[in-house]
């Protein structure tokens, strides 16, 4: 077995084992026959095709509608998780410590979420049989351990679980779930607004401060409150995610291009501790690029996903 064949077989491992049992040898033969004589690495076109078709074969257990939702979902969630992890790594790099509360709180949560799309793709039978809820809670519980307060952990996992359940639910039930999400989302949004309002009111500057100092004081206080406020932004945004999953189409696109980047920007800004004013310089240089990279990356992933979908559909029809 030469290097090229070994690499192609590694790529083929993306397919489910029962599929490989039937097709592996003939596919390897076709792949090697269509390679150049001196080729040592898989061609990019073939590699992308195998990964895509392999994932399609993995998710064959799901229905058509479920699968197209899964693609969108996995792309968005993975992008969000990866960018949050990037923020975390850069924060740790900038501060030189893991001891700040926020990174510790976010890392396990994001790891757990990043693991979910992988489970959905690679263990469709387990996921269908158990439902995603227990799997999600188990993953989050195992990964996060004791570093996140129980209530918060449960709340976050519950929302994610809720969205996945919606994704696997037939159309009729989605309508009521959508209504429920609207109520929860609006409620959380109002609670968040009230919180912002009270934070602004109570953090008023001492009377002795003159005008420029007063403005600075208020601004600093609002920014200091961002970490505590971010959950009030996340909950409504996750509710919007649920609604997007239910509705698809335009709402999903609005979600991808507006709400996810917005929520990410706020989380990114809040994940560097602002209490230490010496970090302000770091923040300006680290956070701004991350946020813009996140937005660009999300747009790219979404665009690619949508293009790939139409491309492959076109290939499927014209090739017949």
């Amino acid at each position, binding site marked *: 077995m030469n290097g090229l064949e070994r690499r192609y077989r590694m790529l083929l491992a993306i397919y489910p084992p029962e599929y490989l049992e039937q*097709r592996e*040898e*003939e*596919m*390897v*033969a*076709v*792949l*090697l*026959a*269509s390679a150049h004589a001196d080729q040592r690495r898989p061609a990019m*076109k*073939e590699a*992308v*095709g*195998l*990964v*895509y*078709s*392999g994932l*399609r*074969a993995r998710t064959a257990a799901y229905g058509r509608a479920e699968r197209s939702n899964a693609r969108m979902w996995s792309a968005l969630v993975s992008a969000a998780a990866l960018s949050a992890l990037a923020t975390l790594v850069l924060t740790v790099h900038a501060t030189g410590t893991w001891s700040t509360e926020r990174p510790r709180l976010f890392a396990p949560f994001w790891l757990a979420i990043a693991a979910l799309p992988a489970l959905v793709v690679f263990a469709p039978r387990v996921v269908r049989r158990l439902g995603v809820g227990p799997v999600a809670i188990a993953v989050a519980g195992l990964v996060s351990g004791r570093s996140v307060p129980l209530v918060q952990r449960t709340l976050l996992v519950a929302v994610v679980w809720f969205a996945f359940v919606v994704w696997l639910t037939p159309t009729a039930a989605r309508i009521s779930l959508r209504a429920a999400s609207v109520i929860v989302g609006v409620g959380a949004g109002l609670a968040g607004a009230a919180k912002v309002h009270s934070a602004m009111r109570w953090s008023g500057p001492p009377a002795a401060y003159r005008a420029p100092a007063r403005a600075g004081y208020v601004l600093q206080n609002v920014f200091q409150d961002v970490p505590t406020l971010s959950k009030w932004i996340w909950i409504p945004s996750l509710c919007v995610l649920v609604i997007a999953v239910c509705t698809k189409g335009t709402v999903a696109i609005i979600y991808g291009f507006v709400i996810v980047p917005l929520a990410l920007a706020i989380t990114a800004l809040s994940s560097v501790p602002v209490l230490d004013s010496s970090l302000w310089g770091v923040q300006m240089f680290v956070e701004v690029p991350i946020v813009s990279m996140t937005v660009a990356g999300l747009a790219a992933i979404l665009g690619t996903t949508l293009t790939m979908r139409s491309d*492959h559909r076109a*290939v*499927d029809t*014209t*090739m*017949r």
Partner: protein
Amino acid sequence: MLTALASGPQHGYAILRDMQALSGGRVSPPVGSLYRVIDNLVRDGLIEEASNDVVDGRFRRYYQLTVAGRHELEGAAATMTAVAAQARRRLKAKPSTIAIKGARA
């Protein structure tokens, strides 16, 4: 793909080459996509596995059209012929007529 199999059973690589030749190099799918289409056509009962053999130590599986696949291909070919005939007829129409119609629109 159905056209590639119209003259008799073929194996995966031969189908791929035939598709490239038929389309003048425009259709050159990655192997993953090729097998996805093969799977779909087998599932829809348009093609079936014919036989296997081993050439130069490599496994080959041959595929052939089923009766349903033959009908499907005949239907598609008839549609394409009709569309092509229409296209030729319309292209023969006087250019002046088209220009007047265009101006009116």
